[in-house]
């Protein structure tokens, strides 16, 4: 099996685990943990998609040179995308945590089931 297949599977599994945590755990903090695992899973997925077997990082140093670059490097685009995605992930996680803190301050509970004042 090739590396990319393994890491592809890992990314899927990680996303599913994260999703399971997000959907099943009552504790708000752990829901956020689940979310961040899901996020990490998507990052691995993106990087994997850019990977090409036996190619090097997309940095044109002396080892790569300037000729026939496209034969030597992995795809740089997903890597650029994932940089953005990671930062976005951090932003979302931080904001969720701020929310969690505020919710806890209001009701002294981390159970998501306790925040049901609005419904129907």
């Amino acid at each position: 099996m090739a590396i990319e297949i393994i890491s592809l599977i890992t990314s899927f599994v990680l996303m599913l685990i994260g999703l399971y945590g997000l959907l099943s755990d009552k504790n708000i903090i752990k829901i956020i943990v689940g979310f961040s695992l899901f996020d990490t899973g998507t990052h691995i997925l993106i990087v994997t998609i850019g990977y090409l077997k036996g190619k090097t990082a997309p940095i044109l140093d002396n080892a790569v040179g300037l000729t026939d670059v496209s034969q030597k490097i992995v795809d740089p685009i997903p890597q650029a995308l994932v940089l953005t995605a990671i930062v976005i992930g951090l932003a979302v996680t931080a904001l969720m945590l701020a929310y969690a803190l505020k919710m806890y301050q209001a009701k002294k509970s981390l159970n998501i089931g306790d925040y049901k004042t609005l419904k129907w």
Partner: protein
Amino acid sequence: MDLISPIYIIAVSLGTGFFMGMPGKNLQRISFYLLMAVLLFNTAVSLQWLYALANQLTGPMQVFTAGFQPPFSINLLMGLNEAVITSMVNIAGLLGAVYMYSVLKKIGTGGQVVYLILLISLNVIVLSRDIFNIFVFLEVGSIATAGLIIFQKGIKAVSAGFKYMLASGVIAGLLLIGIIFIYRFTGSLNIDTIIQENPVFKQGALISVFLILISVILELKPFPANGWALDVYQASHPGFSAILSSVIGTANLYVLYKFSGLASETLFYYLSLIGLVTFVGSNLLGMNQDNARRLLGYSSVGQIGLLVAVLGLIPQANSNFKIIFFGLLISHYFAKAGLFWISGIVKKSGLKSWSALRKKPVLLFLFISFILALTGFPPFPSFFGKWQLVLELSAQGNIAAIIAILVGSFFEVVYLLRWAGYAIKLEPVSTLKIKWVKLIPVLLFGVGLYGAGYFVSQAIPYGNTINFIPLAIVAVLLLLDFLPAYIKNIISISATAWFAYLLFPDAGTLKIIFIVIFLVGGILTLIPGFYMKGKREGFYPSAMLMFGGLAQLIEAENLLQFFFAWEIMTIGSYFLIIRGKKSMIHAFSYMLFSVGGAYLILLAFGLVSMGNTGIGLELLSQIKYYPGIAMALLAVGFMTKTASLGLHIWLPGAHGEAESDVSPMVSAILLKAGVFGLILIMLAAGGEQNNYQWLFYTLGWIGALTALVGNLGAIFQEDAKRLLAYSSIGQLGYILFAFSMMSHMGWLTGFTYTINHFMFKAILFLAIGAIVLKLKTHNMYEMGGLIKKMPFSFIAVLIGIITLAGIPPLSGFGGKWLFYNAVILKGWYFQGAIVFFAGTIAFLYCFKLIYSIFLGQLKDNHRNVTEVSFWFLLPQYILIIGVMVFSARPDIILKPLGATLSNIFPAEQLTWNGTTALSKLGYWDATTIFMVIGIMFVILFGWLWFMSRKAQPVKQFNMVYSAERPERPELTHLSHNIYAGYNKALGFLVAPGITAFWSYATNFFESAGNFIRRIYSGNGQSYAIHVVIYTVVVFIIYLSTI
């Protein structure tokens, strides 16, 4: 023309945003104005593009970031679509900031920055052509949204925000996966390049397209995976809810529009299903809401669902796609923002507390305008959008979709109009303090809504045939609403007369009859208005809306004009009816039946247009697909107005509780609109030998039974106006029956009945209405002996009931004579017998009416009453002259009418010999009868008068109760419950079985809604689960098709 590049919207805004992050107290002070300046700049930039592109002063502009061509760099496109959407975004953003002035000030630069960036992100997602870039700015937008939700203090907003973040986190994940796989399979992130790749799509690419589309759809809150959104609508600051509903929704829809270029046929099909399910489901659940903002949330979700459905249903290549989409979108945009903004002014959340608007006419007017725009009434853009949508769907043969849309719309009408009723009618419990900054945006959006309505009307096919002059008169009356009533009355009467003058010249005989009924009748029933004191705010605009609609109905030459007029008339009459003191609920049920009927008509018009070109009214006679169904739908639709059996339950309340001069308007005049419609389809059906025998046969039966049930209902009434209202049901039953015969004699009968009913019902309702106004009661047992106090009213009522009962010499008799001829010639003996029986019942209530009001004992408290106002008597006596003329010389009308009808029904005509009418079965000389009986009457009356010289007046309380003591005061009135005996025999016929049926239907939908909405448990995690379930379910269904 040198235009500012759209990139500056982003550069200037972000630069300013970053600058606002600088520390310092001075900056804090000016930051709000800085924000406003930037928003103004953005608005100006997008508007200049809109102007330039709309007038084709320039072509679309592509912005290549970093100077490289796409797909190698990210590009922005400013075309006409983008200019429209960004203008919408920026204008609402600007006004939204004005509206949120105090909260933005209070929350400081941090909050202002977030607001600014939200708007920027929306601009970018509209402009960008790069999928990943759109993802990034969608994320910017959703983070900013999460920040704006907590502008509202308190745990509700915080927990709503968290629910929102959870759901949008999952959605964003799906989108990201979709994007990276689309890159994997197509090698590009640029939408246009990917679309070019389309032919080589592999299955994997289809799945990634699915993920991308489903996540954008999920952002648009499809039912039922949208609990998080509803909480946000409810808990956020109303200023932000407005933005969320009208602006974010709009921008996201545009993203879906862009991405839909990637979709396959199958996906479009799913789009339409998802949209329709959302539209119907969300509106069903909306019916149970009592919280205004949550209700608006449901409605928002529904409207967006409808737009998604449009995206899926109408091919974008269709020349009308854009105008349908735009028409619906712009209504939602203006109306939803406006309503959310008003909700922030009203503050209280319960729907009933919106009655506070009653004291603020401007705000109330705007509120109602927004509600009507959402429910798709003319002249708002949604009306034209929905109209064209129905036509396009018919052209596709997609009747199921039309039905779904109409059902969803109907649910929406139910809750929105109920709410409007509360605001118009309930006693205000609190007073509003309105800040100018909050009113200005609402006002501007109201103006925008009307402007957009006019614009859209001009853009759809045949929209330019709509005559807006009646509406202009309504607008003038609205602006003059501060004047005293009599001035407005003069204006209204002149305007009505002017309509009539305009219509007369090219009208044929049939139309002239209706012009007289609608417009001359209108003038006559407006006259009593001179008696009314004060300003009668809102009365004249409503009345002119109704009469204007009626006039246009006659004028209509195509289906659109007809439907437009029909709806205008409906709204006008609704506002008239709801003016009565206890009319809230009755006006509501009137409106439900009317709207239901209107939707059936709309559906039928759709069927009519199928396979035909154009939309002229003549198409009614050349229906190509499902002609029987179309005709039946039209008939039922019109019968909601004529209150035929099964559809009549709204009428007694609506007519009975209406104001004294409104009852004659709606009863004598408005009901004839339904008759007009029925005549229209009967004419279209062709003559006696038509293809719809079964339909008219059924209608005949319905007419007969309606006559019976209406008249039976009338005899048990103690309320004078309700008695007349039930009598109207019965009379309209006769009319329906007569026209349904589809014969020469039948139609002559029908017209005679129509003219008679117009005259005598106007007389009776005017007379009784005036008396009710004077005595302040509707109950007949509280009246009595008024003959001496109100002799003129007595004579009017007497003539009215003689006409009604068909007693010679008045024209009612002529109607009967024609009727028997027609029945016998047609051979509808059994139905005819029922109608005959109903006629005898009419005697009973006629007697009751005149006896209990004018004869018998005068009540103590009425000792000092005087004759009713001259302004009520005047139209009555004018009409009495009309009755006399029609009775003495019916040939004046019936002769030319017969001539016209002979083109349609050549067989078995009525022939005239001078004033003598000859039929196969006999003759009738109305003039002679009139003279003979008139002379006899004078002689007999003189003799009676002569004989009664010696009559001894009896003292008032000189009466004997045969040893019984009356227990309740009304029992002293002889005619109280006079027909109780009949009730035992025939009461089952008027038992409210039909009412029970309708309330059962209502309960069914309400409890279904109530049951389904329990999935919105309030648990944020469950909402995330819904999102995942939704995705999985749609995916699995989708997978089976690829």
